């Protein structure tokens, strides 16, 4: 089996840079998960790692294996397509469940329609928050 140290310099430099960029973006997303205040701000943070972070690491992996095996190795595209499709679906399900729980308990943490937190992004859940005062049980 070939080894990563056998890469020539013109391929090793972009592989190293893309790996560092991807890992740094994933770390930035996780730091945002640690530092941001409410759940509805935190749900945005990990998407930095799941889009650009995974993209950079997958391009680095494709480049390294293509040069090592002297043929185009493209099966990393499978992970990229799958993660790009599934991350918004999973996070939207999670945000909808969190909104349902907060509305059910009458918690004040959820984004308000007229406030600066929830009103600016125009998310489809925002108009539904209007009915929270009438439907509080």
């Amino acid at each position, binding site marked *: 089996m070939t080894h990563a140290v056998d890469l020539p*310099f013109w391929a090793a430099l972009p592989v190293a840079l893309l790996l560092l960029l991807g890992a740094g973006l994933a770390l930035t997303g996780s730091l945002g998960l640690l530092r941001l205040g409410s759940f509805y701000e935190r749900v945005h943070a990990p998407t930095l790692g799941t889009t650009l972070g995974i993209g950079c690491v997958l391009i680095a992996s494709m480049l390294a294996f293509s040069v090592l095996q002297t043929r185009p190795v493209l099966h990393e595209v499978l992970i990229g397509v799958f993660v790009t499709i599934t991350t918004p679906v999973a996070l939207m399900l999670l945000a909808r469940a969190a909104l349902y729980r907060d509305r059910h308990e009458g918690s004040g943490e959820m984004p308000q329609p007229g406030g600066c937190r929830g009103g600016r992004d125009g998310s489809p859940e925002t108009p539904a928050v209007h009915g929270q005062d009438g439907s509080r049980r």
Partner: protein
Amino acid sequence: MTAALLTWSILLAQCLLGLAMACATFRLLRGPRAQDRVLGLDTLYVNAMLLLLTFGIRTGSTLYFEAALVIALLGFVATAALAKFLMRGEVIE
């Protein structure tokens, strides 16, 4: 020169991804509510997948790619099932 560049950058990338996994684990253990824990678990899955891909580049073996693909599949299924559990109180109705 090339070997040193690759070795040190891969090592640094692994350290950064380990730090990212530590942040996600902190949110998983300390999250104030259940949805924060699920979000931390999702981030932990993604970071573990990136770490496996980095191991694959380091060793030159395509075995790690398949493990990363399995982690991506299971991470989506786990997050979707947990979100549905938080929504309804049961996974399969």
